[in-house]
């Protein structure tokens, strides 16, 4: 018997939430705090030919302006650190950061932005990942538009022999599925408050979902050891993966380091929606070999992920997708090729169930289409193929504590579906 585990105990911080006492980062006000606004690229692709911030710097009420030149450390961040905090030259998506202004209030900062002289040589962008994969496509990235894994331009998963599996199959069922670009849309927009604290260290109040993950990136950007940054967070007004990437802390931190005054940088909802990281869109091409008895004997999937202008978590998401895109099913022959493509759009990164939700959305439709094609009940095909303990997944992991059959039985019961006895008799403990 447990006393607390398994009990419906209300939130530890619930009283704070219902009284409005929970302090979110935008609720922090410091004496003399300045507000930051950022000049964002108005074009999807181009080269900065001229940038002059002097008129903005001279404006009354402006405390400082920063650009790529003001990054003391590495002007790059991300899981694969390839995105600049401020782009020094190349613009790869609309909304890319160019310069930041700190002023007495946001209105003044907005006016100062208008005084920045910016000349961009616009270039032809590419938005369609299939077009971007063509040899003559405009280059989003100097190294090429397709991410290179340790297996080459595709993430390869090979289990068994898929072509042999197709030969054994009674049916071949193919399907192509796509997902759209999604915004995380947490109700709390991205925001950061930064200042130099009493120990002369940089303090940052953050909405980060991953304090230590981001602390490392910030340490590299600021060229400061980790103990010279006090990174304060822990309470977030919704994340859903939006706050797995830094959107404000680097800018606020750089500004505080330069002007040595407290600053707040918050995104408007428009900026948040249009220019932050996204759940990138996918295309899935499935080809399945199925026996008359419903067993899936071969599954071949090609996945194409549009990761936008920077890698973000794109390659990681393609990897993660590849592990499970074949579904929770015992399939002896699996062939997966995952492709991660750059386009001139905001970087795609993590969002709730990154890679998995997209794969599931396609794979489960394919399952139902297989059921239809072979004339089998969609419950039955799932029960027949569902993982049992000891089954092997696409990347050769062993399934432990399988529970799909148990979940399906209960769902059928709650939905008022009377399953045949032979399905009810099944268990994840064995075949």
């Amino acid at each position, binding site marked *: 018997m447990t006393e607390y585990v398994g009990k419906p105990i209300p939130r530890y911080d619930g009283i704070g939430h219902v009284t409005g006492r929970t302090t979110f980062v935008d609720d922090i006000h410091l004496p003399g705090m300045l507000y930051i606004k950022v000049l964002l690229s108005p074009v999807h692709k181009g080269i900065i030919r001229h940038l002059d911030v002097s008129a903005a710097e001279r404006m009354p009420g402006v405390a400082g302006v920063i650009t790529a030149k003001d990054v003391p450390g590495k002007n790059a961040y991300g899981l694969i650190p390839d995105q600049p905090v401020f782009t020094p030259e190349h613009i790869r998506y609309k909304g890319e950061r160019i310069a930041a202004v700190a002023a007495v209030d946001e209105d003044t900062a*907005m006016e100062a932005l208008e005084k920045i002289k910016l000349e961009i040589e616009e270039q032809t962008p590419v938005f369609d990942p299939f077009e971007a994969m063509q040899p003559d496509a405009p280059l989003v990235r100097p190294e090429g538009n397709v991410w290179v894994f340790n297996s080459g331009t595709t993430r390869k998963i090979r289990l068994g022999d898929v072509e042999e599996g197709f030969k054994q199959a009674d049916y071949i069922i193919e399907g192509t599925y796509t997902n759209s670009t999604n915004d995380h849309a947490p109700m709390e927009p991205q925001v950061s408050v930064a200042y130099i604290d009493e120990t002369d260290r940089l303090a940052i109040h953050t909405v980060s979902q991953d304090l230590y993950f981001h602390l490392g990136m910030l340490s590299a950007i600021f060229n400061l050891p980790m103990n010279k940054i006090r990174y304060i967070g822990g309470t977030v007004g919704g994340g859903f993966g939006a706050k797995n990437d830094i959107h404000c802390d680097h800018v606020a931190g750089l500004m505080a380091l330069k002007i040595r005054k407290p600053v707040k940088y918050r995104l408007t909802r428009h900026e948040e929606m249009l220019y932050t990281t996204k759940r990138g869109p996918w295309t899935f091409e499935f080809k399945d070999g199925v026996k008359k008895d419903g067993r899936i004997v071969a599954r071949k999937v090609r996945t194409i992920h549009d990761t936008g202008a920077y890698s973000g978590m794109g390659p990681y998401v393609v990897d993660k997708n590849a592990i499970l895109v074949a579904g929770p099913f015992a399939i002896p022959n699996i062939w997966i090729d995952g492709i991660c493509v750059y386009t001139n759009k905001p970087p795609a990164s993590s969002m709730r169930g990154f890679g998995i939700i997209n794969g599931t959305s396609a794979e489960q439709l394919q399952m139902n289409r297989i059921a239809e094609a072979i004339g089998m009940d969609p419950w039955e095909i799932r029960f027949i193929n569902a993982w049992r303990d000891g089954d092997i997944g696409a990347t050769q992991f062993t399934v432990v504590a399988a529970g799909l059959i148990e979940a399906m039985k209960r769902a059928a019961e709650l939905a008022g579906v009377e399953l045949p006895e032979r399905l009810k008799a099944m268990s994840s403990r064995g075949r």
Partner: protein
Amino acid sequence: MGECIYFAPTEIGEAVRLLAEYREKVTVVAGGTDLLPKINYYQLKPEVLLHIGRLGLDYIKEADGKLVIGAATPTSKLASNPLVAERASALAEAARQSGSAAIRTTATIGGNLANASPAADLATPLLILDAELLLTSTRGNRKVAINDFFVGPGKTVLEPDELLIEVSLPHQKGKSVFLKLGRRKAMTLSVVNVAVRLEMEGAQCKDARIALGAMAPVPLRCTRAESLIKGQVLDKSLIDRCAAEAVAESSPIDDQRATSWYRKKAGTVLVARALARAADMEG
């Protein structure tokens, strides 16, 4: 944000005097629900804000057989007022479906019209109810039929010194219906909305009004479609032809909410359904 001055007069005379004085510099604010996003996002930097919420324009009454509504009457009152429900059910329904509870508290009928969004929810019911708008200025009053009020997206016949103060609806025969298609079940802008009023004698249509929202640069009265059914005995096929004609009069665009193709499809369905409901011919 520059220097902005603010007035909240309590008399219409004072309001129009300020309008005459500051003219184009004035931004009139009633509920503010359409205006404030523009100010908050720096798309509008008003020099003079004229708040008309204290002019006593929040009323719904009957006068000379007309239903008379003050321009600053909030949408929530249109949605719950028994007189509106009885005399202008399409307007009440449009009010109920507009925005969210918190928006309806402040959004006003006058603001919805003066803002002149092609998708304005209250415009189509007022078009089919032959609403008349009372505009005032230091030069005097004038009445404008709602059909003549809208000029283009965000544009009306209001002169810089004029104020919309009242909407009046003549006593109308027939049944009015409002249907809206948004993109979710609450708090949604119209992809297309339709208002219809039919005066029936048995199966024969004596008079008809049909209006479409979000289907043209302005809320659109579909007069060709109306004349197609006036005097006719209505049946399903005539209703379908009338709906097609109404949509043929429109000119919807592709935008973030829908394509022109979809708006035409959905608009045709909505007009047909509204006509059937107004004619008590629902299957």
